[in-house]
């Protein structure tokens, strides 16, 4: 096994205490109310807290909290492309990097970026790219870095929202903001903006119609820029899910708009009367 020589090493093997817990943690059930008191089968998203411009070193940044999910995004650029052979004379390049802090999940993650992180980075890239006016930034690259500090479900959806907010804060020209929303389909019912337990739990007895859906949406253009779904869902529930997600996006839209307006006002205070 290759050892990581660039980090302080601990014991060869260690296991999470969760594996030895006397009583297992509460399981996700497909009936009754949700653990956090939200409504099932309704567009009930968690309240979000967003703030722009927290990182002094970045061109633009945003911090977002939705329930216990906490993430942070920084945007650097536009700057000269790093790899000269990759330079596009007509169009700018968008690079995305999404990572999970090792302490962000119930079980400790590794420092080394796993395949899940890379998948998320790619999906983030695909969801954001259609909203950016990249042709305005020839020969340059725009970097989007997302750090998940605490994973309490629907990470990708919130990462999309947070990243678009940070891009806007950085003053990158965009056609529209990008908002994200996720649902978890469980048999006949669904939950919007699922928590970590709801996302990963296997509550329903039937294994039919189980799936997850994450949607990236451009609200003022009314277009979908990214759609990611896994599991097995019927056609009807998938299309219903897309509609539900769009509704969910509209619910957080005013919060994002306000945060952005606040950041702009702070950066350029309105001219005084005198």
């Amino acid at each position, binding site marked *: 096994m290759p050892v*990581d020589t*660039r*980090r*302080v*090493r*601990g*014991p060869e*093997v*260690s*296991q*999470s*205490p*969760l594996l*030895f*817990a*006397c009583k297992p*943690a509460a399981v996700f059930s497909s009936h009754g109310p949700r653990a956090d008191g939200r409504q099932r089968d309704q567009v009930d998203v968690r309240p979000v807290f967003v703030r722009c411009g*927290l*990182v*002094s*070193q*970045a061109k633009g940044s945003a911090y977002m909290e939705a329930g*216990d999910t*906490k993430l*942070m*995004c*920084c945007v*650097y650029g536009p*700057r000269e492309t790093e790899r000269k052979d990759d330079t596009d004379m007509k169009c700018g390049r968008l690079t995305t*990097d999404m*990572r999970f*802090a*090792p*302490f*962000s*999940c*119930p079980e*400790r993650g590794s*420092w080394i970026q796993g395949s899940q992180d890379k998948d998320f980075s790619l999906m983030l890239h695909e969801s954001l790219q259609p909203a950016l006016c990249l042709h305005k930034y020839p020969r340059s690259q725009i*970097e989007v*870095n*997302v*750090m998940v*500090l*605490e*994973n*309490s479900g629907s990470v990708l959806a919130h990462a999309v929202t947070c990243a678009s907010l940070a891009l806007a804060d950085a003053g990158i020209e965009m056609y529209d903001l990008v908002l994200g929303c996720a649902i978890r389909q469980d048999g006949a019912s669904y939950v919007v903006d699922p928590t970590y337990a709801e996302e990963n739990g296997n509550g329903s007895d039937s294994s039919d119609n189980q799936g997850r859906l994450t949607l990236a949406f451009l609200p003022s253009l009314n277009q979908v820029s990214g759609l990611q779904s896994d599991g097995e869902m019927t056609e009807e529930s998938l299309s219903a899910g897309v509609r539900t997600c769009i509704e969910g996006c509209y619910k957080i839209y005013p919060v994002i708009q306000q945060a952005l307006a606040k950041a702009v006002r702070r950066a350029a205070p309105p001219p005084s009367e005198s």
Partner: protein
Amino acid sequence: MAAGFKTADPLEYHRSFLKENCRPDGRELHEFRTTTVNIGSISTADGSALVKLGNTTVICGVKAELANPSVEATGKGFIVPNVDLPPLCSSQFRPGPPGEQAQAASQFMADIIESSEMLQMEDLCIERGKLCWSLYCDLICLDYDGNLLDACALTMLAALKNTRLPKVRVNGETGAPEVDLGKRRGLKIRRHPVAASFCIFDDSVLLVDPAAEEEQLATARLTVVTDEEGRLCGVHKPGGTPLSGERLQELIGRATVRQKEIHRLIDKVIKSIV
């Protein structure tokens, strides 16, 4: 005009401030930036803290896992500190494995733990030779504006003070550990090592708590770690301009004062939570 001057000749720009005994951010030469500590914000970690030192922001999450003690030290547990400088925190860091600065910082954290004996490794032992705790202290810099070491040392201390380990019992018959996640108790922190960093500008002027730009232009950096009894647990000066013994004495005096301030701050924050 001022912005242009700063970009064109940063060294001269800083000198013009130092001549007047002040610094570009309005501080006096021996003044630390505003320090804020926030603990327990990450619920997925067993202990966590977020520290802001001016703009510099570091977050630490402590995750405890079960491991077998090493053969050389059967009665001791492990504590594994790692510092990460992701590309998110500043444009000077590239994605990929940690660079020299991050690795040196990780080693410095490990040295502080070992030298100060802030935690007795025997306290982390659950059953001699069979089972012990391994505490992973993962430190992530979210905003890099200089003086990483002070911020990291403080964040780690605060996170360890906040750490509560679940109760574990080894089953006599099966030998398997049984974890009761409901019952938790804190760690016994025996010492409170606090780091204070300085830099030497133009081979002569001493600055306290350097910001990123000051650090870059400085001719030497120095970090002094002191505990509550006034003992030194680390004097780290990785080269640079030579320093006389008297000068060193002066810095140690300042570091001792800082230790008291920070110790009080941590106590206040811990009390406010309980």
